[in-house]
């Protein structure tokens, strides 16, 4: 029987993910061990994909899976949809989110900032740590749907974040 959906404050999720990064930064003595965050994210992504595709028939095309990611997965996890999707039709997709919610609260100490370019570079560096988890969630979800891929994020134009999905080419015989 369908259970009544329980809701939690988004601030709680923000605090949890920020604390994850801070904790693992301490564990790694100053640098964030990406592999740990990626393992967590992939596990979560796999489970989420199984749950959110409950009533959906199977998607045979890679493009359908990516479109589902842009709409439904993004809607559930990041509370909005992807703003633009580009592809080179050879297995690379760029998902652009103009206002990525998980990095909206990242700030850098103004005293360290110099000119405009240095400021964006510093914020981008701070944001890069926080993007391991979302990339891994996306990767886990795609892999669970049968799309073997690598996901990277580019935070150089905050608050917009570009996610690049590179689908592994099928093994040649």
């Amino acid at each position, binding site marked *: 029987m369908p259970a009544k959906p329980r809701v939690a404050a988004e601030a709680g999720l923000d605090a949890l993910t920020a604390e994850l990064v801070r904790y693992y930064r301490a564990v790694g003595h100053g640098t964030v061990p990406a592999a740990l965050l990626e393992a967590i994210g992939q*596990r979560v992504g796999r489970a989420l994909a199984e*749950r959110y595709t409950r009533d959906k028939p199977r998607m045979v095309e890679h493009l359908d899976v990516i479109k589902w990611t842009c709409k439904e997965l993004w809607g559930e996890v990041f509370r909005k949809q992807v703003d633009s999707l580009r592809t080179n039709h050879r297995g690379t997709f760029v998902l652009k989110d103009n206002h990525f919610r998980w990095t909206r609260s990242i700030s850098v100490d103004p005293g360290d900032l110099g000119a405009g370019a240095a400021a964006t570079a510093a914020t981008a560096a701070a944001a890069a740590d926080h993007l391991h988890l979302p990339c891994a969630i996306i990767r886990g979800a795609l892999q669970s749907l*049968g799309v073997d891929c690598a996901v990277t994020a580019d935070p150089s134009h905050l608050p917009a974040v570009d996610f690049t999905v590179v689908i592994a080419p099928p093994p040649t015989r």
Partner: protein
Amino acid sequence: MAAPILSLVIVGHEDHPIFEVDLGSRTAEPSTRDERAQYLHQFVLHASLDAVEEQLWTTPAMHLGTVDRFNNLQVSAYVTAAHIKFLLLHDGRSDDTIRSFFRDVYECYLRVIMNPFITPTTRITSALFQSKIRGAARNYFR
């Protein structure tokens, strides 16, 4: 009256069987004759995986119906979007009952899969899951 033949297998990623149960038997202790039958059922179910793989690429529907036959036994399959396969070995049941049964199994399976300690190869050993599946089988196939 011969016991109804009814066997469910859930196959996860990379063809790992993560759950197997014989739903036809009324009691829990297998007799020697039943053990031989159980080996046969397991064999037929795993052999039908090839047929399931072929058919699942031809249609986006989740319920594939009867994918394979062996003597008087039929194998029905239901494949989720994440390519988890539910296989049911039976001796001729209505497609609609099987469809509803698979939906119930899928619901229970989703609850179990949310457990963060489960990996793609873990077998499902929860007694609650077993009892829910047996209850669903009793509802639909009695």
